[in-house]
């Protein structure tokens, strides 16, 4: 039997990465994710790994880029303002198809936002290609400490499998809360050797590896995009992840991800006790988005309610997924019980909204 321990979501990020064989971490302090670099600085040297505290998130992402080119499993973590600084580097990772895992423990923005306050205000940024040039990165959105631990392993696998940056997003609530997790090792299919990695050419029998920008390659940047389009199709076909809860017979389907989905799940139970037929669909991959599944479920319900701790971002993808005229409602950050640092959307508030929508 594997060990069970009690850890925070941030701790689960770090432990999940090490479980996946990541020995190199490059990061910069920012609230509310600093427990991740702190843990890595303590633990990686013990296993022969390397922790480097960079001078900025820009420094971190380019160390990650170098580390990915060197052929190792590498990662960094940050929070929203730092993620914006990393966006440029993620664009380069996408361009040269270098695997890397980047964790964004979101805090409410824009601008400096607030380190001590949750929020899901980076949805559009993480899902639409956060840097320049029009690329996609796989985005994983866990909703519990166990899922964070597991999806970190999935993230490294997918990054290597598709040679792509993989983003994992949590938030203040998920990062700071403690839950028991089982330290299990997930099994994955074997991956090809990284024969493209920079190691010095003697390790490749004298054949050098050279990574020069897409525009220097045959067919140039357009050719690069054509290749990516095919890759994205493959990812969309194989990697969509989502979870449903009581969605089979529901009248009103709630769509929520991450910490909001935990709260929405509580609201589904609460509503069912009151005779409200609520159900939940929780996207686990924000890209590729479970559009097909939302489309199918929404065709069987009377109403859809998107719950997200932002001004309304996830709702754009939900609306784009739905092919019928079923009404789509939004419950956003204004539904928090207060506007201060500790404000959250309570399940009771979701029920209140459902009743309002139902015209009670």
């Amino acid at each position, binding site marked *: 039997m594997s060990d069970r321990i009690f850890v925070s979501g941030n701790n689960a990020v770090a432990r999940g990465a090490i479980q996946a064989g990541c020995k*190199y971490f*490059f990061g910069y302090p920012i609230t509310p994710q600093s427990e991740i670099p702190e843990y890595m600085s303590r633990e990686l040297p013990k296993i022969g790994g*390397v922790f*480097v505290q*960079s*001078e*900025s998130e*820009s*420094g971190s992402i*380019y*160390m*990650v*880029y*170098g*580390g990915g*080119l*060197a*052929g*190792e499993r*590498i990662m960094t973590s940050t929070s929203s303002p730092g993620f914006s600084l990393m966006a*440029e*580097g993620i664009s*380069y990772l996408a361009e*040269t198809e270098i695997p890397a895992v980047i964790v964004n423990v979101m805090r409410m923005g824009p601008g400096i936002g607030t380190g001590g306050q949750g929020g899901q205000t980076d949805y559009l940024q993480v899902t639409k290609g956060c840097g320049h040039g029009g690329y996609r990165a796989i985005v994983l959105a866990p909703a519990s400490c166990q899922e964070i631990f597991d999806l970190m392993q999935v993230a490294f696998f997918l990054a290597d499998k598709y040679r792509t940056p993989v983003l994992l997003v949590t938030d203040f609530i998920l990062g700071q809360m403690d839950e028991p997790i089982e330290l299990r090792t997930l099994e994955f299919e074997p991956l090809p050797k990284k024969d493209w990695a*920079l*190691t*010095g*050419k*003697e*390790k490749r029998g*004298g054949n*050098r*590896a*050279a*990574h*020069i*920008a897409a525009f*220097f390659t045959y067919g140039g940047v357009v050719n690069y995009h054509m290749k990516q389009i095919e890759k994205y199709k493959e990812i969309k076909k194989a990697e969509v992840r989502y979870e449903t809860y009581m969605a089979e017979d529901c009248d009103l389907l709630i769509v929520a991800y991450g910490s909001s989905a935990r709260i929405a799940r509580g609201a589904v139970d609460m509503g069912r006790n009151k005779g409200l037929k609520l159900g939940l669909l929780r996207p686990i991959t924000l890209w590729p988005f479970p559009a097909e599944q939302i489309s199918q479920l929404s065709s069987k319900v009377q109403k859809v309610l998107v719950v997200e701790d932002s001004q309304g971002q996830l709702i754009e993808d939900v609306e784009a997924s739905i092919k019928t005229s079923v009404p789509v409602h939004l419950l956003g950050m204004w539904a928090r019980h207060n506007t201060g640092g500790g404000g959250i959307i309570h399940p009771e508030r979701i029920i209140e909204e459902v009743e309002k929508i139902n015209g009670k």
Partner: protein
Amino acid sequence: MENNVPDLKKITGRPKLRTDFPGMYCPGCHYGIIARLLCEVIEELGIEGKAIGLAGVGCSFGGMPLTIDVDWTSCPHGRAPAMATAIKRIHPDATVFTVQGDGDLGAIGLGCFMNALGRGENLTTVFLNNAVYGTTGGQMAPTTLLGMKTTTTPLGRELKTSGYPLHIPELAATMKGVSYSARCTVHTPANFQKARKALKIAFQKQLNGIGYSLVEFVSACPPGWGLNPLDCLDFISEKMLKEYPLGEFKNVDSLD
């Protein structure tokens, strides 16, 4: 048929590491000479199997990787030292070096570079100073001389609005994590030989595991300077070297 050709002995030729890819530089550019020097020094030290190069944004971005037969990556503007940091930490036996121009290293990447020096990374940087942004069409660089005309200093660089030329090896020499810092040129045969020595010492420092080593090349950019290649040589002797004196600014065998 009788062979009348006397026994020929090959006394020089293209370095083994110089690929077949044609040079991409303008006539009179010194980057091709510096690339040759890099090939020669890497061969002499026998490190071609371990060498990993990182080219910054500028005319060396594709030029160096395509013409020197070792492992390479091109890098985003100014970020080569951060990328090199990770590569060296992961492969400590590799010889990791960056080739960066004055805009790449001295402007957009100065913070990244200084922080790598501050950490005392065991890396080598070849800094190409031709006092202009060549690739983007001849704009002002941090190393542009006062009074020098560029496309963004049409009346000549003015102190009042654009500040002072930047002295990278002198600056690097003040950093504790630096083992070697020098400036050279390849604009005369004698200087080419001195540059070879400097470059060799710089790589040797890395092989000995001592901190960061840096060599600046004051280098010609005929289109950027609006001069023909021969006049560029005079411009280097008469103008560039007045502002940028040649020599070693630091050479230590251990860091304090």
